[in-house]
């Protein structure tokens, strides 16, 4: 794509502006963009770790990938040195594996294995929490019959 301004060089900067509720798209080469005062250099990371990672992570073709859970992109990561959520580890898995190898000399966890609590027990905990709340309210409201019933149900669950 040619530059909208000089029609000579390749457009590398794609500028979207919104003016009186209309969206304008402008494709500019680096020089014309600079003439218009548009910052063209890639944002340099401010974080020392990010800087280090910036040099370490092979990135070029993953820049457009967004984590579907938290919207983080590789560019975000390079700027902050932080992933946005646990799903990022799957979305950027290949790059991350390589990154971890460089940072830790390894990419495979050999420490304690973990299994999250069964959803059944989580559900039970939630139900228990609710029953206990109701019990508290029942006692406060002096509804002792209801309280006794709730207490029995709690006992069964526990």
């Amino acid at each position, binding site marked *: 794509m040619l530059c909208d301004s000089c029609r000579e060089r390749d457009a590398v900067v794609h500028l979207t502006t919104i003016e009186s509720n209309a969206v304008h798209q402008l494709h500019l080469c680096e020089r014309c963009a600079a003439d218009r005062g548009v910052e063209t250099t890639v944002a340099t990371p401010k974080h020392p770790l990010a800087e280090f990672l910036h040099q370490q992570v092979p990135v070029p073709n993953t820049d457009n990938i967004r984590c579907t859970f938290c919207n983080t992109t590789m560019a975000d990561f390079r700027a902050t040195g932080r992933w946005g959520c646990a799903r990022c580890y799957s979305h950027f898995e290949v790059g991350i594996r390589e*990154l971890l190898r460089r940072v830790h000399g390894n990419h*495979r966890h050999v420490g304690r294995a973990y299994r999250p609590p069964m959803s059944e027990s989580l559900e039970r905990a939630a139900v228990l929490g609710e029953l206990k709340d109701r019990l508290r309210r029942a006692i406060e409201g002096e509804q002792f019959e209801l309280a006794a019933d709730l207490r029995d149900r709690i006992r069964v669950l526990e």
Partner: protein
Amino acid sequence: MSVDLSLLPDGGVGWLDASGAHADIVLSTRIRLARNLEGYAFTGRARDGERLRVLAQVREAVTSVSSLDQAVMYRLDELAPSARALLHERHLVSKELAGLDTQHPLRSGAAVFLADGLGLMVNEEDHLRLQALRSGFALQEAFAAIDKLDRDLGGRVPYSYHGEFGFLTACPTNVGTGMRGSVLIHLPGLVLTKEIGKVLASLQQMGLTYRGLYGEGSEVVGNFFQISNQTTLGRSEEELLDQLLRVVGHVVEREAEARRVLLRDAGYIIEDKLWRAYGTLRYARSLTFDEAMNYLSGVRLAVGLKLMSSLSVYTLNKLLIFSQAAHLAYAEGRALTESETNLARARYVRRALDEEAGSVG
């Protein structure tokens, strides 16, 4: 809102009591685990509401975690800056959680649960930062305590965990075990004999790293170093701790040896220097934080060398914490300017040394 320090289990400073192995050289041992809750974006990416839900979920879970059943909870997001600084000076919360780091403003939902020697920070860089603090060189004890808390809590809330990468964290340098073990160690002997450079370089070859008194990014003052494991992935918790135990054990021996050499080869010079440090602390009318740290370092060395007999390591440890700006302001009951802080610091140190003075010497 202010914070009542008397409510803290053990005042939050049990880790200063100078018990534990090698207490004259090793001040304290800390192990922290980074964990995140499944189903939410990491703290830095999460919205206010998400962070509050994380806190609510953790609060509910904590009620049935035995090692936290006596815990006190503080909502950092509801505390005044002076109160947050106080908790940070006690090493109970990180600078980031306390919102004292210019890069990280205070977050909604930032909270900490504090129990005897245990802490649980919520909505730090990771949703959860579990930490165990012990006096002296006590890696195994600290690990036993934190591992129990981790298993109890992890059985009640689902952690983010990946079969290959282990526990998932916001920063890739913490992924895997999520564990950072660190030992706060006083190395004046190695600094004075100029051996410290070699020792620190060898740490790095052994996969360890060092920092100042307040962790990442903090300067080394008063010859206090925090030595910790550099990597968290590819080795088990036990292997990482073993390595730290061995290397720090070796550093302790080198420090003890350097102290013996100093006393043998430059006994009177050292003795004079350390007594001068004591004299300054005992009589100065204004002390900056760095000055106080450096003189306290000297006096601490003198106590370790048995040149000063009845000044206790515990008193010196307390001085390290209580002579900091937020603690001085808390004791005075008002905000202090920098010069007032320096005056208050000198007054506080003088008084503390006076109390123990009768038998010093």
